[in-house]
């Protein structure tokens, strides 16, 4: 032990960081932990492929005249919802088991920052998995068919929907970490709540994929409603988050 004076050595000066700094630090922690363990990404990626295979086999028997284009939007969103459920559950399990979350709660910070940083982390992981899922989905289901020029428009509702899923999902995951049977419970709480968002996103995605002539006048209101859903639900979740995480 160096001869340095004990009192000096054990004390520290500090300046209370701003909320944005807290946000960056917490987000950095989530990203670093995930890119080291890659726990969420691998499990979600594998899960997506499995669900794709199941859907493929399930629909393979369908006679030729079934128009895959009409169903593609719905199918794709089904995969996204199931995969995100899996990811959301894992996103909080490691925070709880070693008391790490309590360590964060001990720090003088605005606790809804935890919500924002977790939301961003979950959003990024979902988007990374979607980067794999979209081309795979195209190859498995849409490759043979003639594609409409409006196909890229399907990416917008995908982004809006994923944000909504990450927002509502993060709040509900925080609730279910402290309950028994948390995986099933998260799905039970999450699915009915996400139905309106799903309703709007599937409609917008299908319109984009099928490239129907009435695209614009039906696509835009659906997308606008999805964005409205995101804003309202994420705002409410953000306001309520402090009560949930401190419970």
């Amino acid at each position: 032990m160096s001869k340095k004076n004990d009192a000096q050595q054990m004390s520290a000066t500090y300046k209370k960081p701003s909320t944005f700094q807290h946000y960056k630090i917490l987000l950095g922690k989530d990203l670093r932990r995930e890119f080291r363990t890659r726990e969420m990404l691998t499990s979600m990626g594998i899960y997506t492929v499995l669900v794709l295979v199941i859907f493929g086999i399930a629909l393979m028997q369908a006679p030729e005249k079934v128009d895959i284009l009409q169903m593609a939007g719905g199918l794709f969103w089904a995969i996204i919802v199931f995969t995100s459920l899996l990811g959301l559950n894992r996103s909080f399990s490691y925070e709880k088991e070693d008391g790490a979350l309590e360590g964060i709660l001990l720090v003088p910070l605005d606790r809804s920052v935890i919500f924002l940083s977790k939301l961003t982390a979950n959003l990024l992981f979902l988007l990374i998995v979607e980067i794999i899922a979209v081309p795979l989905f195209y190859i498995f289901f849409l490759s043979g068919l003639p594609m409409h020029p409006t196909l890229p428009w399907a990416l917008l509702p995908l982004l809006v929907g994923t944000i909504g899923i990450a927002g509502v999902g993060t709040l509900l995951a925080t609730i279910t970490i402290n309950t028994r049977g948390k995986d099933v419970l998260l799905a039970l709480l999450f699915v009915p709540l996400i139905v309106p968002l799903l309703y709007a996103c599937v409609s917008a995605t299908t319109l984009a994929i099928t490239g129907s002539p009435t695209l614009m006048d039906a696509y835009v209101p659906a997308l606008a409603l999805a964005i409205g859903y995101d804003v309202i639900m994420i705002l409410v979740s953000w306001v309520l988050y402090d009560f949930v995480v401190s419970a």
Partner: protein
Amino acid sequence: MSNKTSKLDALALPFLIIGGVLIIFAFVFNFTVTPMALGDIEVPEPAMIGGKIVTTTLLLSQKIFFYHMPVAVISMVALAFTAAYGIMFLRTRNTKYDIRAQTATEMSLVFVSMTMVSGVAWTRHDWGAWWVWEPRLITYLILMLMVIAYFILRTAVSDPERRATYSSVFGIIVAVNAPISFMITRLVPSTHPVVFRSDSGLPPLMLIPLLLTILGFSLIAFALFRQRVRARQMEEQVESLKLRLDDLRG
């Protein structure tokens, strides 16, 4: 028991009776005086019935509407109470509000199940299928699922304070989500036209039974709410007396 609640509870029974009378009266009125709604299938030749010229088929099934709509409205209103009591609990942390929020959600569950039952029966006749993925039915289906999820969440949490906090938060989220899903399912252009032609202006003869039913069911809902709250408060007293008993015996 503080006397405030006992005054409200005294109202419970009379309200229940008045409510019952109202809805029965509306029921009878509905099937006697109110004419049947006009269907949209044209008749080759108009005919004279009861002094009126009828040019389309008559719809008896539309009569389900007179209980279906009031019950649906009350299930939504009950949810609003859940959210209000939830907010009050989060602010004051007083279990009194948690009990009321839980009871309000219970009322919402009862009324939304009645909505579903009548909705499915109506769809079965009008559309020939037990289930149609159309806005009205979707809204009430997910409302019912959310309320059921609310109660399963309550049973999954053991710590009373955490349970109350989580169910208050979830109650608020559900109450915010219900109108959103009501709007989105109707505004997003989809292939299905709205099944129930109930929103068109109602002639007075139809309006009377409808309003009476709404009033009647609201009184019943209030009465049952008070009764269930009193029962729950008593259950809490039983728990605390049990603890005191253990202390005395311990």
